[in-house]
């Protein structure tokens, strides 16, 4: 069964359409890579798919249920997003951030082994307890990845996830993505990073507000 489905999605900024008639079906245990020029509407599409932005036209369905009919809280447990903003409290440590978001989404459950998660994304244990304000872009991105992992969501919408990551970080990201895919998660990754392209089960290109299978290997 299709997990996330976009039907005739359209979205406009300042009275002009950027996305028109977007049709997209994402299946469980697949990784789809989304490319497109700057300003093509990739980020907006991800926001619409995540249910944080209302499309001007069309609808998005999660397991056949339109997003507006799903309680936002439930949606947040199913769909995780990683985008330009790290989504972290800068005064809190990496540990505190991951624990906080886990507790907000899954209150009353067993405490999470946040330290293991952070080690998992390659954050040295000396960095676990200091405020993330002092982190580099790549370290922030790793912490954000740990936050997404902690959410336990089965739909991942990632916007340029390799931003700021070094070679080891990219390999680690690819590793994590493959692992959650194997666990049955649905992944959509907007990226231009050639390192992530080989992972894709399917590649889509966003051009003139329209999704089509990508012919070119890489746009970079």
């Amino acid at each position, binding site marked *: 069964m299709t997990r996330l489905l976009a039907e005739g999605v*359209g979205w406009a900024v300042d009275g002009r*359409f950027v996305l*028109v008639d977007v049709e997209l079906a994402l299946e469980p245990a697949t990784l789809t890579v989304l490319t497109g020029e700057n300003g093509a509407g990739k980020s907006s599409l991800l926001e619409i798919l995540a249910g944080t932005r209302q499309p001007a*036209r069309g609808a998005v369905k999660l397991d056949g249920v339109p997003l507006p009919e799903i309680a936002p809280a439930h949606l947040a447990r199913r769909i995780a997003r990683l985008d330009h903003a790290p989504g972290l409290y800068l005064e809190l440590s990496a540990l505190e951030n991951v624990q906080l978001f886990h507790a907000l989404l899954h209150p009353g459950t067993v405490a999470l082994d946040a330290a293991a998660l952070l080690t998992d994304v390659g954050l040295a244990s000396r960095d676990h307890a200091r405020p993330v304000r002092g982190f580099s872009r790549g370290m922030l991105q790793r912490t954000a990845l740990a936050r997404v992992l902690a959410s336990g969501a089965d739909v991942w919408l990632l916007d340029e996830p390799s931003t700021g990551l070094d070679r080891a970080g990219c390999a680690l990201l690819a590793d994590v993505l493959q692992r959650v895919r194997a666990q049955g998660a649905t992944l959509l990754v907007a990226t231009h990073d050639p390192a992530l392209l080989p992972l894709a089960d399917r590649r889509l290109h966003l*051009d*003139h*507000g*329209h999704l089509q299978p990508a012919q070119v290997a890489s746009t970079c």
Partner: protein
Amino acid sequence: MAKIASPRPTGFLALLSVATLLVLAALYCVAFVARPDVTLGIVQKIFYFHVSSAIAMMLCLSCGSMLSLIDLFAPSDRIDALAHSAIETGLAFALMVLTSGPLWARKSWGAWWTWEPRLTLTLMLLLLAAAVLGIRSMAADGSGRKIAAALASLAAPIAYLIHVAVEKWGGTHPMVLKGGGIQSPGMQLTFRVAMLAILLFAATLWTLRFRVLRLEQRLHALRLELSAQDVRKQRPGAPT
């Protein structure tokens, strides 16, 4: 697309004509039917338009607030346009009240402004309506509508509390409505005609603004549709 406004606004033109005639009639009555007040003199004649404007303002703003609440429950472009135009019309009448009020106050109480409860309440309503409209215009695409609707719905019950507060605060305030001033039949007739005229005038303004907003919404929708077609045409492989 649903019909938004008829190209021949016969109903609106009828409303406009009746309102115009009634305002003229009211002016005639104020000038020739009602005699000047014994104690206040000619300035008392402001009363006829001042009080009816105040009532029109209260009606418009209450409607605007209630419609905003409805729009929060069940969003619809029509209700939104109705609420928005009601608040704008209410703001216009608040300005009218705050212009005629001091003119009268100067003559009858000897000061341009007194913190008389009703005057204070009107000023607060004006500030609130202006703030709500300002926020609506400053917010990004579409989000302003919800924010303004939320604030407008909250403003009505709080306005009632402001009313209670300024009444208590004002202590003994001049009773204007229940004075002996409008006992004569001529004055009563004038007051009724003026009230009807101003209320119809308010309805006309409200309808006019509502129609303009609906047309704007329609224009926006058409522009959007056009840009969607533009995007479709530019696609590779699209029929030219």
